[in-house]
């Protein structure tokens, strides 16, 4: 078969697949509130992903955070203390109380949508 045809067919399949991924393939999560969006923006602005993972995305120097809120051994208080004080490897970012609440709210949202993690028992 002509190479250009093979490329065209693959490219069209890729475009159709991408459209499906953007819509029906990823429609299970609930919508974020405004405060959760603010928490998410802070998570990016302070580059928390450098040390922490959400759904496997991020670094390894700090603990994984996808289910930190519902984790029996950690929970919301654990996350709050770290956000307010830092830790041995984590700098103190001097977050305001409103910022701490927004990040916690975002982590609660992530946790609530981590269906597969909980199905598998987490890590």
């Amino acid at each position, binding site marked *: 078969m002509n190479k250009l045809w093979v490329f065209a067919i*693959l490219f069209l399949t890729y475009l159709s697949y991408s459209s499906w*991924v953007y819509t029906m*393939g*990823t429609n299970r999560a609930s919508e*974020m509130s405004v405060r959760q969006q603010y928490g998410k923006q802070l998570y990016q*602005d302070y580059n928390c992903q*450098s040390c922490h993972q*959400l759904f*496997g995305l991020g670094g390894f120097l700090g603990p994984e955070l996808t289910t930190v809120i519902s984790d029996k051994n950690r929970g919301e208080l654990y996350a709050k203390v770290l956000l307010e004080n830092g830790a041995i490897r984590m700098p103190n970012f001097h977050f305001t109380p409103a910022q701490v609440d927004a990040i916690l709210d975002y982590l609660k949202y992530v946790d609530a949508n981590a269906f597969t993690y909980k199905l*598998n028992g987490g890590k």
Partner: protein
Amino acid sequence: MKIRINNTGSWFIIIAICSLLLGLLFGAMGGLQYVFPGFLKDHLSFQKMRPLHVYLVINWIFCGAAGAMYYYIPYVSGKELFSGKLAKLHVALQLIILVIVVVGFFSGIFGGREYLEFPPFIILLIIAAWILLMINFFATVRPSFKKVPVYIWSWSTGLIFFLITITEAQLWLLPYFNNNIIRDITVQWKAMGSMVGSWNMLVYGTAMFVMEKVTGDQSINRSKKAFFFYFLGLTNLMFNWGHHTYIVPSSELIKTISYVISMTELLILANIIYSFRKTYLKINPHKHFLSFRILTYAEVWILLNLTLSITISVPAINYYTHGTHITVAHAMGTTIGINTLLLLASLVLIGEEITKDGFLFTKTFNRSFIFFNAALLVFWLCLVGMGLCKIAAQQQKNGFYEIMDKLLPYFKVFSISGILVVIGLVLILIPVLKVFLNQLFPKKDAVIVKN
């Protein structure tokens, strides 16, 4: 016919080598933060060190591939570059982006996403710079895709898909994507997974060109087999990213498709084993021996990483390996072991073409190259060991700090071998860097072939 001197190409190669050396330095310093938890925590924390390391190493790959392409485009097309002015503008823009990103990271200015942590407006500059390269490539080569060799397909694909994927990686700026975590994370993995595929296309295209120059056999890049593997690579670029998302609650179909596509890499693996044996038995090139040697080592790294990649694509195994340093071993092995060696083979080939033959093939270079590969192997095995140890600790329900304590011996080996990798690469790259610096800023005693 020899490859002709190209100032734009040399500038890109110099930027690329400096980026790699700096990127590895930040990587080594970041590695020390695993061993000494408080090290530089308040001044240059891991939050800054990691993006500096990642950005600079990725910049090495893109600039190295762009530099090689600026050298190869006039050679393969038999024409002058379409626009020297656009090429100079590309260099200037690339330098501006580099300075803004590095200064921004040092100052703690982020706002972006994993691997693209800089503020989103910088993407506009990156896209503008990329379009300049695309214009020069397509306007000079004017490829007739029915006839051209596979590396032209590979470069064209890399150029187009980088533009697509870097744009796709910014979809989070739209509330439709940003406010739905599953969509957001899935699309991010999709964009970044395919972006890696796009730079692989650029690097592999460059490597295929080098193979043709080394062996003198033009049929290699025009064979049905070459195009079969190109299309297999393209299919993987488009659809195999989903093996990163087994843990994300997106549709099961995404995971099934990516698993099936990932397994087609077994064909590539089988081919490498076959051709590797054949290479050893048959080919004995007299020209560009150093490039050939580097490519042979790269083949071993491809073999190791592809085996790891296929293994961690199996869902039952991926469940345990995901979120461990085995994923890092895969990433580091690919960027340093494969991409860096393939680019190095390309830079050595260009260096040998624009200076007197055999200038780099010294005992020091030879020893440094073996030293670098040995250090990288220890580094890579250490990451795999770290991942296995973490899996065992997770199975025992150890907490994060307990796991970090158990991993401490691995962190030490990882840091030391990381520093040795940096030393090895410095020893290898400094002579290569000198060649391109001498070309741009010639000394009286430098021997550059004016062709």
